[in-house]
C-alpha cells in the first residue's frame, strides 16, 4: 500500500543533472552516498551542507570535492549549531541588503547516525526548539562506520559491531520519535530503494519552513558485510521485512507512506549480512531471531 503522491510519480521525473561530481573517496556501493545524491537532486544545487564528523566528512578531502554546492565541516557534535550560524548570517545579510536574495541557500546538516543520535543531539534538539529553518539529513548506517564500525545508538539489536562482539543488546534509539516530540513541521524516514517516495518527501518538505529531518537508511557493504552489488537488495529487504518503515510526520501526525502487503520474514534481511552471521552459525539463535521478528510485528501492529 502506498500513499498518494503529488510531485513525483516515476523515475523519469527525477532530475537528471548530477549534483555531485564523481571521484569521491567513499566506498564502492555506499548507500549513504546514493541517498545524499538523490536527495540533493531534489533539493537542487543552492544548498550549503554543514557536516558533522563521519564517513561523509571524507567527501571534501583537500584538495578535492565532488560538491557543486557549498560545504562546511564543523565538528562531530555541533553541525546543527553551524547550520544556525550560516542560516542567521544569510538572513542578516539579505535583510540588510548586503546580499541579493538570489544568493540565498538552503542550509542542510549532513550527519551520520553516530553524531545524530548521540553527540550532536543537544545542538540539534536546540536547533529544532528554536524552529531553525534547516534540513537535517541523517544517513543511518547503524554504527560508527568511518572509524571501523563500532557500536552507535543506532546499531540494531543482534548486530555485531567492532565493539559488541556478541551482538548489540539494546534497541535503536528512536530518533524519528525524538525529533517528532519537538514538533517540527516535518520528519521522514527514507530509503534510496524507493527513490520516488524519497523524492516525494523531499519535495513535500521543501514547502515547509522550519526544521526538517530526512532520516535515510544507508546500507553499508563494508560495515554490514555484504557484496557491494547487493546494496539495493538489502535496502529492499529492510523495507519489505518491515525493519525500516517508510513514514513521515507532518506537524507531528505520523503516516506510513508504504506498508508491505505481505511482510517478508526478518530473517531474510538478516541472513545475507555478516554482522548478523552469529545469529545463524555455528548455532541458530532461535530465541533472538524470534524476538527480532516480534519487535517488528509489534511495531507494525501499532503503526498508523
Amino acid at each position, binding site marked *: 500500500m502506498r500513499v498518494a503522491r503529488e510531485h513525483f510519480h516515476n523515475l523519469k521525473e527525477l532530475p537528471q543533472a548530477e549534483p555531485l561530481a564523481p571521484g569521491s573517496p567513499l566506498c564502492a556501493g555506499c548507500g549513504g552516498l546514493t541517498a545524499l545524491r538523490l536527495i540533493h537532486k531534489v533539493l537542487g*544545487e*543552492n544548498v*550549503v551542507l*554543514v*557536516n558533522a564528523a563521519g564517513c561523509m*566528512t*571524507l567527501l*571534501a*578531502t*583537500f*584538495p578535492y*570535492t565532488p*560538491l*557543486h*554546492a*557549498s*560545504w*562546511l*565541516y*564543523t*565538528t562531530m*557534535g*555541533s*553541525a*546543527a*549549531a*553551524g*547550520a*544556525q*550560524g*550560516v542560516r*542567521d*548570517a*544569510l*538572513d*542578516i*545579510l539579505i535583510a*540588510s541588503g*548586503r*546580499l541579493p536574495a*538570489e*544568493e*540565498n*541557500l538552503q542550509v542542510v546538516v549532513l550527519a551520520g547516525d553516530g553524531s545524530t543520535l548521540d553527540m550532536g543531539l*543537544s*545542538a540539534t*534538539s*536546540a536547533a529544532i526548539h*528554536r524552529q531553525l529553518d534547516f534540513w537535517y539529513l541523517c544517513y543511518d548506517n547503524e554504527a560508527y562506520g568511518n572509524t571501523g564500525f563500532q557500536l552507535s545508538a543506532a546499531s540494531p539489536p543482534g548486530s555485531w559491531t567492532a565493539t559488541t562482539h556478541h551482538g548489540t543488546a539494546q534497541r535503536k534509539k528512536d530518533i524519528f520519535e525524538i525529533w517528532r516530540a519537538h514538533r517540527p513541521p516535518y520528519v521522514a524516514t527514507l530509503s534510496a530503494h524507493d527513490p520516488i517516495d524519497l523524492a516525494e518527501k523531499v519535495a513535500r518538505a521543501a514547502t515547509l519552513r522550519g526544521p526538517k529531518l530526512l532520516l535515510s537508511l544507508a546500507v553499508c557493504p563494508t560495515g554490514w558485510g555484504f557484496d557491494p552489488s547487493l546494496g539495493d537488495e538489502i535496502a529492499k529487504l529492510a523495507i519489505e521485512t518491515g525493519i525500516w518503515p517508510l513514514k513521515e510526520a507532518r506537524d507531528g501526525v505520523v503516516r506510513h507512506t508504504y506498508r508491505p502487503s505481505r511482510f517478508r520474514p526478518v530473517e531474510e534481511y538478516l541472513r545475507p549480512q555478516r554482522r548478523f552471521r552469529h545469529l545463524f552459525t555455528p548455532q541458530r539463535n532461535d530465541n533472538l531471531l524470534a524476538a527480532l521478528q516480534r519487535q517488528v510485528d509489534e511495531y507494525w501492529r501499532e503503526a498508523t
Partner: protein
Amino acid sequence: MVGGGIRKLLTGNAAAAWGARLARIDYVPAFPITPQTEIIELLSEWFDDGTLRGKFVTLDSEHAMLTAAGAAAATGVRVFTATSSQGLVYGLEVLYTLAGWRVPLVLVNVSRGLSAPITLGPDHNDVLAARDTGFLQLHAETCQEVVDFILLAYRLAESPAISAPVLVNLDGFQLSFTREAVELPSAEQAERFLGPFQPLHPGFRHSHPVAQGVAVLDGATYSYFRYQLHRAVENAVEEFSRVAAEFAATCGREYAPLELYRADDAELLLVMIGSYATKAKAAIDRWRAAGRRVGLARLRLVRPWPAADLQRALAGRRAVGVLDQNLSPGLGGVLYQEVAGAVAGMANGPAVLRSFIGGLGGKDVSDAEFDHMLATLDAARPGGPPPAAELLMTQVEWRQVARSLTVAGKQEAVSAGKEGGEHAGSA
C-alpha cells in the same frame, strides 16, 4: 580628532557589551555562564530595543555557541560572543576549528578558575588553555581597556595580514563586576576607527560554492595550513602597533603590546597579565617611594607572544619575577615558561628569573605577597638548580584554609607553613 566620547561608570562586563555595540556587530550567539552573563544580557536588550540590528540567539552550549559564531563569520557577518571558564574549555575544540577556518570574530572571555573543584573567582587557566588554538589574545587590566581592546580586536581579526579570531580577556569579579570610569568612544569615533565589515572569505553563496573546513589528510599540507595560521597570528605583533597608532589618533589612548611601568631603570622587574597589575603598580610605587629601582612589565598581547618586546624589556635586569595567575600541574606557571623562552640565549638576559603562582581562583594577591616577590628577587643570586614555582599564600589565609580542612573532617595536617612570617608559601 581626539575626544568626543562620553564618560560612564561601567563594569567590565558592561564595557565588553559597549565594545561590541560600538563595533556594530551583526550577530551574537550566546550561552550564559557566571561571571559573563551581564554581557549577553545587555546585548540581548540592545537587540530587542533596536539599538543593535542583526540577531541575538541563545544556543544550547558554548560548543554550539562557538560553532554558530564561526559559521556566521564564515558566511560574512560581524560576530561577537562571550564566555568564561568551563564554557571556554567546553568549546575548546571549536576554538581550534574557528582559527583553522581563519574567520574573524571577537570572543570575550571572563576569566574564572576551572573545576574541579568548581569555583567562581578568576584565574587564567581557562584562557591559557586556549593559547595554542590560533586565537589572538588581548588581556585587559582595566574596564577602559576592555572597550578599547574589543575595537582593536576587530581591526586585527579583519586585517588581511591576519584574518583570525581574537579573544579579549578580562578577569571575573576583579573587572567583570567592578565599576570604574570608562571613556566610551563616540559612535563616530568608533566608526572612523572600525569601518563596516569587509569579509575576506567568499562566504556561502549560490553563485560561487566553496568547501570550507575540509579534511586535510596529508601531513605536509596540514603543516602548511597550520604554519600559515602561525604566521598570520605572528603578523599581529606589527599589526597591533599600526592599528593601535590609528586608535590613538582617533580616540586618544595609546596601547603597546607590552606595558612598561616605571621600568626604565628598574633592577627588579615583575612580569604579569590581567587586572592584578593595578595592584602590582601600587606595590611598585611603594618600593619606588622607598628608593628601590623596581618596575612592571604587563603583557597586553599574549598571542602573538611579543618576544622581541620582552627581550628588550628584560635585557640587563638584575632579577625578573613572573607572576602567574595559573598553574600547570607538574610544570608551574605557564607564562614563566614563555618568558623564559623569550629570553633564552640572550647575551644580556636577566641574571635571575623566578616563578610565582598567585591569585588562583580569585585569591587576593596582597601587598605582603608583592613585597615578598620583590624581596625574593632582590635576594636572589644567579646559578643553582631551576627555581621551583612558588605558591603565594599568606599565613592568615593558610590558617583559614587549615580551619576549613578540619571542619571538613580532615585531621592530618602536613603543611606547617612558615611560623611567624606574613607569607606562608614554600619553595
